[in-house]
């Protein structure tokens, strides 16, 4: 689907039904062992107000001809270490044709770039990292941003009855800026 613009907006309570739909019906297991209900998501939302949980949560919204169309995904900056200045990225962009959490399309990549820009240019962090479970095919997208694999955590998640590995990929601010200049 083509949108005029993809925006990252601070999450609102009205995004919760979309979030619930995406998280509970996502095509690849996201290692969430519970079905999430509205109360659980409302609680999570309330605990994130005023930055109380230390995370930055965004809804990825699509607009067409200037009008808000729908919420197509969610992303966050979490586990921020303000002394060592790094954080974990969480990103999920829902499409019908690609089960990866960051599908290889212009809209998703543009939203992901905005999230990284926010971490480096607004929060002044020096490193971002993301966990890639082996059932989530996003390494190609991460490579295009210059992410480097730091290693593989063996058997760290459970998915469909099997333990699966996750790769941790990271990007330093200087690597990101060098790539931007080129």
């Amino acid at each position: 689907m083509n949108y005029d613009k993809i925006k990252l907006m601070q999450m609102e309570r009205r995004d919760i039904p979309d979030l619930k739909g995406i998280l509970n019906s996502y095509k690849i297991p996201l290692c969430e062992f519970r079905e999430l209900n509205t109360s659980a998501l409302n609680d999570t939302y309330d605990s994130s107000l005023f930055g109380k949980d230390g995370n930055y949560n965004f809804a990825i919204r699509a607009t067409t001809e200037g009008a808000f169309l729908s919420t197509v995904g969610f992303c966050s900056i979490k586990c921020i270490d303000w002394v060592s200045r790094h954080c974990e990225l969480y990103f999920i962009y829902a499409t019908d044709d690609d089960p990866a959490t960051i599908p290889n399309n212009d809209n998703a990549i543009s939203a992901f770039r905005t999230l990284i820009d926010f971490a480096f240019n607004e929060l002044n962090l020096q490193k971002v990292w993301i966990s890639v479970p082996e059932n989530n095919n996003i390494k190609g997208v991460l490579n295009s941003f210059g992410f480097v694999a730091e290693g593989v955590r063996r058997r760290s998640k459970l998915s469909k009855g099997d333990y699966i590995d996750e790769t941790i990929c990271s990007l330093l601010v200087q690597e990101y800026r060098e790539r931007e200049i080129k």
Partner: protein
Amino acid sequence: MLHFGEVRFEPVERRDHVSHLVKFGNDGGLNKLKTTKRRTCVSEQEELVDHLHEREDYFLFIISAPSDKIRIGTCEIYDVDWVARTCRACIWMTDRAENIPAFGSQATNILGNYIFKTIGLQKLSIDVVTEDVVMMALYKNHGFHQELRKRNHLYLRGKYKTIVEFGLLSEEFEIKI
């Protein structure tokens, strides 16, 4: 009480151990990765001890050696994922403890035994700063595998340090003497 050789893991008591937690918490050291970077105080540690029993994903022990009179450090088990059956842990011993390699090895035996044989988890992960060669050698000797090399992951004494994450699966664990 958990013990191996001369080392013991004691449950934390408010009356006996809060002063040690404050002292250890404010003692700098390369292998102190998990604990907060702020200075800590008695009230904070009392609050922690009072609520330990309510937390399902966190365990804290005082390490004592060579007798149960001398407290040499702490062992934290945290981020316990009861579904994937994984956890992270941190063994911290004061730099002034004698014979860190021997006591560290015995503490690792106790930790592995508790995690794999007592509470039945399947994976243990531990972070070490690359400069801490004693603990790196100790974990490798105990069969841990280096899984991640986390670049610029810790800001310590004015510089960004690389952290190595070691992982040990339940079937890889064996007691080392």
